[in-house]
């Protein structure tokens, strides 16, 4: 009675299916760690025939005019200031890379675009992406052929900005909708609808004087700070071509 021999025992590792699932899991963990480089590069190739052409001219030209006039004014001011203070730290734009948007997620939770230029073209994490109108976002991830850009509207984006009329710094926070929020940590700040917002000279992430947007509405319900909704000059949902700025700040 005591000598009953066990003929076979079931263990999960005896099943081939479980090992296959485990291998798939490991592969997907690798995909997760590499931030989906395979998928993005694969998408680069299959979306190639559908890349944007030369259309939407009117919207883009209007935004370019607006951008140029604002930029010119800022540069004039900057120039006179720089002539006075020669020791001011200079930002130099080395070279720009033109890129087409091959995937865009401008609604919902994820606010990002994928460009058709990657590390092979010299794009690096932290590069600035501008479109007709002004700033769009920063490069957050690079694969061999693609670059993923976090838009300024993303809840992950927090940037230091400059309100030119009041000469004051603020924080631009993405909220997950089309209008990021400008937070000024001063209740006395005299911000008005129509004020122009550009990148801050004090920012360590962006070069100064890149146009960002215009104040659309102001919320004064908070005690310690003022917040304002910003209407962006560059419209990520209609732009097809962008410039990647390789910048030394």
């Amino acid at each position: 009675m005591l000598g009953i021999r066990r003929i076979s025992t079931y263990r999960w590792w005896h099943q081939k299916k479980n090992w296959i699932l485990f291998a798939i899991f490991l592969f997907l963990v690798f995909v997760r760690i590499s931030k989906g480089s395979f998928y993005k590069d694969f998408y680069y190739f299959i979306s190639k025939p559908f890349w944007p052409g030369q259309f939407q001219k009117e919207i883009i030209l209007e935004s370019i005019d607006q951008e140029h006039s604002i930029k010119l004014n800022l540069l004039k001011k900057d120039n006179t200031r720089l002539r006075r203070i020669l020791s001011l730290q200079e930002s130099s734009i080395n070279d720009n890379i033109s890129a087409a948007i091959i995937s865009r997620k401008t609604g919902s939770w994820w606010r990002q675009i994928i460009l058709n230029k990657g590390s092979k073209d010299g794009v690096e994490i932290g590069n600035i992406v501008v479109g007709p109108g002004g700033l769009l976002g920063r490069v957050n991830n690079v694969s061999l052929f693609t670059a993923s850009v976090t838009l300024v509207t993303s809840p992950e984006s927090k940037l230091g900005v400059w309100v030119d009329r009041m000469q004051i710094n603020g924080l631009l926070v993405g909220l997950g909708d089309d209008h990021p929020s400008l937070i000024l940590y001063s209740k006395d700040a005299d911000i008005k609808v129509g004020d122009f917002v550009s990148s801050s000279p004090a920012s360590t992430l962006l070069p100064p004087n890149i146009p960002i947007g215009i104040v659309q509405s102001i919320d004064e319900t908070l005690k310690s700070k003022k917040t304002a909704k910003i209407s962006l000059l560059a419209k990520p949902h209609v732009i097809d071509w962008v410039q990647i700025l390789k910048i030394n700040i």
Partner: protein
Amino acid sequence: MGANFENKYLMNKFFTKQLSIISFIFIPIIFLWHPNWLGFFGIQPYWPLFWLLPWSMINGSINGLIFGLFLGLILDALTLDNNFTQIPGLIFCGFLFGRIKLNSDNLVGHFRYGLICSFGSFLCGTFYFLQILFRNFSDSNYLMMIPGVKNILAEVFLTGFFAPFICSQLLRMFKFSRRKF
């Protein structure tokens, strides 16, 4: 001639057998493609649920849970938000969808898919939104409330709207691929 025919037959058999896995590969592609003309206020239906619902209904809760995790891993890899993840929502939905029995009444079945997917999308959206709220708890918490709720509602509506069309087709396809040759 004979060998060629056999090869073709084997290829067809392989593709039919693996239809569900082949369609799985296309989810991240649609997720990246983000077709604007299908959207509503720039918001898209929650694509992974359309695949996860028929898969879990046919293969059960455990399979649903595992593939929910797989989908979450891939989709997280494709989005730049390092602090937030879609995995909990998808795992939960995969498990939940596996508990649902297939309904023989076709018409009710179609509408049921819409309802179930809407609920799943609501769960996933809420999980994601809670992570964003939790992360930004100290800063501008209240500012994120309105766009967040708008996102969830639009996503729930769109997912529920498209689910009857897509899920029933996928379910037919998966059933077809499981049949004996």
